Each structure stands twice: as structure tokens, then as C-alpha cells.
């Protein structure tokens, strides 16, 4: 592949991925409002379009047309930069996520991910998510308001605490596949046990790791039951109290984009990625893996919403105790046991 074709193909893939991701973000909000509504015996959005399907568009227009307030007491450069930082890092990590095997179009073999298949894809995702904390922390500081500052402080402490458990929960999977490349990790999960149970990592000794990952991911994305940084009852809205219009929407987009990324990562690492039954004519065979991938991510998003509709919020000391005294030792134990079993099997 020449460098010009490479650039053109990469640009097309980037545009497509961003379009799909942002649409997914918009409709996750719709899905959340709809599902939580039904769980609370309400209808959710119904007015704009059939089943309220055009609600995300209406929300987008509203965000654009609202007055963009900048309170006089803020520190302006960082106040403006913070939401940009948050949304940029949230959208970046999608670049290394593969959604299927490479496809061949017009004689070109194109991998279904933006970045080339790197051996450190997983590290890039972890690094980018850990940099995303700055958006929250800086917005809290630059707003010059006590609620924002407390929200920002809580968010940074919480994210650092749970990042350790999150990272360690992935080590078990890495030991089993022996690679940081997400394609290799998915390839290591093909096949079945006893003819019907898929050989996904969640059924292959990594169930505890999946549980730790799930908990830590909820804390990392500031979702209920760990949404302390924006606890309405105590902090008004937490770190984005002073933000309005599109700047607020950027924090919103960052949160949901992070949820989608975390779901993609869970699918790739624990649920076998795009592996699933493939049959039918060639076109269907090419599309089915992508369908399986999206379906698994959808299930993960649905669990997110389900948990939100079910559980109350933790107290702050409970949050820290849970992260440091329960999840962290459990994840270390998981790493040790996995390593022992892998060594004994060799």
C-alpha cells in the first residue's frame, strides 16, 4: 500500500469511526432515558419523532442554540480547554479498537481499525483514559467554585484508585493471550469447549477479572453507583456545575464515548470480540462479525443502564474502601492464580 492510499484510507476510516461513535453516543443517551423511564414506570422521551427517536437531534440543536455563559470568576484558558481535553481523549481511544477481521475491498486489504495493529494497543487505551482525568480535574479547578473543585478532586482521586484495579484485572487476560495487541487477544479466544460453550475469556478462567473490570469501569466512567464526582444531592452537578451549552455537552459526550470505549474493550478482552457464528453468502459473512461485536457492546451498554436504574449511590468512604481493600487485593490474587495455572499447564 503506498503512502497516499494509506492516508486516504485512514482519513475515510477516521471519519466513519467518528460518525458512528458520535451517533452511538447520541443514541445511548436516548436508550438510557427510554430504558430508565420504563424501569421507573414512565415512558421516557416520546414527543420528537416515532418513539422519541429524534430526541438526540433536538437535544443537539438545543445545546448549540443555548447561551454559552462564561462566569466572570473562572480562569478562562483552562475553563475553555478542560471540556476539549475531556472530549478529545474520550474520542481518541477508539482509534486502536478493531471491530472485525481485515476486509478486502478493490484488492486492498483494510484492517477494521484506524491505527495499524500495534503491539501496545491496550496500553494506549489505558494511557489515553488516564489522561482523560485532566479534563475533569482542570474543569473543577478553573471554575473557581467550591462544588466544582470538590467534584474535580473526587473525580481525580476516584479515577486513580480504580485505574489500578482496572489495569490489574486486564493482566490475567494478557497472561493468557501473551500479547498487548487486541487482534491477538481476540484470536486467542476463538474455538469452543465441549462443542457449544465459546472459548471466551469470561468462560475461560477470567470470570473474576471480568467482575473486577466491570466494577472498575463503572467507577472510571463516573457512573452510578460510583458517580460521586457529580453527586447532585451534595455538589449541584460536580465538576461541570459552571458549564453551559456546548461546553457542558462536551463533558456529556466524553462520558458516553468513554462508556462505549469501555464496552468495546470488555467485548474484546472478555467476550471474544467479533467471534460468533458466521454463515450465508460472502457479503453476510463479512458483515456478521461486525454485527456480533456491536451486539456484545450493546449488551454491555444495556447492563450499564440497568445498573443505573437499580442501584443507589455509594458513600465516599465506602467507595474508597471498596476500591482499595476489596477490588485491589482481589485483582492481585487473580493475577497470581492465573499466572500459576498458566505456568503449571506448560
Amino acid at each position, binding site marked *: 500500500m503506498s503512502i497516499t492510499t494509506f492516508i486516504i484510507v485512514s482519513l475515510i476510516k477516521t471519519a466513519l469511526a467518528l460518525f458512528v461513535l458520535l451517533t452511538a453516543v447520541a443514541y445511548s443517551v436516548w436508550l438510557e432515558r427510554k430504558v430508565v423511564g420504563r424501569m421507573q414506570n414512565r415512558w421516557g422521551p416520546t414527543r420528537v419523532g416515532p418513539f422519541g427517536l429524534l430526541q438526540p437531534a433536538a437535544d443537539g440543536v438545543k445545546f448549540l442554540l443555548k447561551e454559552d455563559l462564561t462566569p466572570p470568576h473562572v480562569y478562562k484558558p483552562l475553563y475553555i480547554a478542560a471540556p476539549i481535553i475531556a472530549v478529545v481523549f474520550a474520542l481518541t481511544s477508539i482509534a486502536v479498537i478493531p471491530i472485525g477481521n481485515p476486509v478486502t475491498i478493490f484488492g486492498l486489504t483494510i484492517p477494521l481499525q484506524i491505527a495499524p495493529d500495534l503491539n501496545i494497543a491496550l*496500553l494506549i487505551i489505558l494511557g489515553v483514559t488516564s*489522561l482523560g482525568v485532566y479534563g475533569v480535574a482542570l474543569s473543577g479547578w478553573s471554575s473557581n467554585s467550591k462544588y466544582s473543585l470538590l467534584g474535580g478532586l473526587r473525580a*481525580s482521586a476516584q479515577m486513580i484508585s480504580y485505574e489500578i484495579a482496572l489495569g490489574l484485572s486486564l493482566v490475567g487476560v494478557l497472561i493468557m493471550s501473551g500479547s498487548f495487541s487486541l487482534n491477538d487477544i481476540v484470536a486467542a479466544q476463538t474455538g469452543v469447549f465441549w462443542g457449544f460453550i465459546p472459548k471466551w475469556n469470561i468462560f475461560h478462567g477470567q470470570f473474576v477479572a471480568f467482575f473486577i473490570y466491570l466494577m472498575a469501569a463503572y467507577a472510571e466512567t463516573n457512573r452510578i453507583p460510583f458517580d460521586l464526582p457529580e453527586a447532585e444531592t451534595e455538589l449541584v452537578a460536580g465538576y461541570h456545575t459552571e458549564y453551559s451549552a456546548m461546553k457542558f455537552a462536551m463533558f456529556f459526550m466524553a462520558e458516553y464515548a468513554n462508556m462505549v470505549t469501555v464496552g468495546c474493550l470488555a467485548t474484546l478482552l472478555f467476550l471474544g470480540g467479533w467471534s460468533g457464528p458466521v454463515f450465508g453468502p460472502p457479503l453476510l459473512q463479512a458483515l456478521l462479525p461486525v454485527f456480533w461485536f456491536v451486539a456484545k457492546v450493546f449488551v454491555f451498554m444495556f447492563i450499564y443502564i440497568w445498573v443505573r436504574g437499580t442501584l443507589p449511590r455509594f458513600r465516599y468512604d465506602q467507595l474508597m474502601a471498596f476500591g482499595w481493600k476489596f477490588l485491589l487485593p482481589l485483582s492481585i490474587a487473580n493475577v497470581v492464580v492465573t499466572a500459576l495455572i498458566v505456568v503449571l499447564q506448560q
Partner: protein
Amino acid sequence: MQPVATTFFFYLLAGLAVLGGVLVITRRNAVHSALALILTLLSLAGLYLMLYAPFVAGVQIILYAGGIMVLFLFVIMLVSIEKSQKEEQFNKLWLVGLLAAIALGGLFIGVYVKGKALFPEAKVVLEEGNNTQGIADYLYGHYLFTFEIASLLLLVAIIGAVVMAKKRI
């Protein structure tokens, strides 16, 4: 693919790292200094990538830029910036600092004058794909003893911090 414009990227990243370093010590606002330090750390991560050490680059971003600097910011955010900016900046250790600066400057000049003669001729290049395994082999094989001593040091630091922070254990 072959690397493109390596010289350009090296000077860009090195320049950014130096710029960040200068900003760290010249800004009066501590939050700005912390942000400049993040810039330096990220440029260093880029330089590691150029040296075909993707694992080191990833760990640099995750640990330093994403972990330690967040804790720095966490503490700085609680300091009243207006008050600390009005305070007089002083440094009682200027003599030691001067000596250290002269020594380091001399070292740099020496390296610049002697040039490549100081460094080993053959460049050790780990295979790009096996960078992680290579580091693990060295860390847990060849340098195991040093590695354990370093971790013991960190353990002492952790225990010390807990003892100092807690009034009653």
C-alpha cells in the same frame, strides 16, 4: 512502513520537552508548572516511541502523566493560588544549586565535545514487537536484585507516608 521525518520529530519532541522544563521552573502559578511538567513527560514518551520502546512509552504516559501528575495537581488544587503568588520566592539552597548546575553543565559540554566517542558503537535495538518481553527478561532476570532493592525502597516510602499521615495506627 519505514519511519518518516525522524529528525524533524526528534527536534520537535526534544524542543517541547525542554520548553516544558523551562516553564516548570519559571511559572509562578503552581498549576501552570504542573501542566508544563505534563508536556515534558508526554514529549519524553514520544521520544521513547522513536527509540522503538513502545512499552516504556505507554508506561511513561500511564504512570507519570496519568497517575503521578494527577496526584500533584490534586494537592496543588487545594492550595490558595492568590496567596501563594504574592509570597516572596526564595531558595536557601542557591549555593548547592549553583554547584549542581555547574557540574551538570560541565557534563553536557563534555558530552558535546567528545561526541559519539563516549557511547558504545553498536546500537542495541530490541525487536519492536518483543519490547515488552525484552524488558521483562532484563528486569526479572539480569537486574532482579536491583529491581528488588528499588521495590524495597518504595515499600519503605509507603510505610513512612502511612506512619506520618496517621496519628494512631
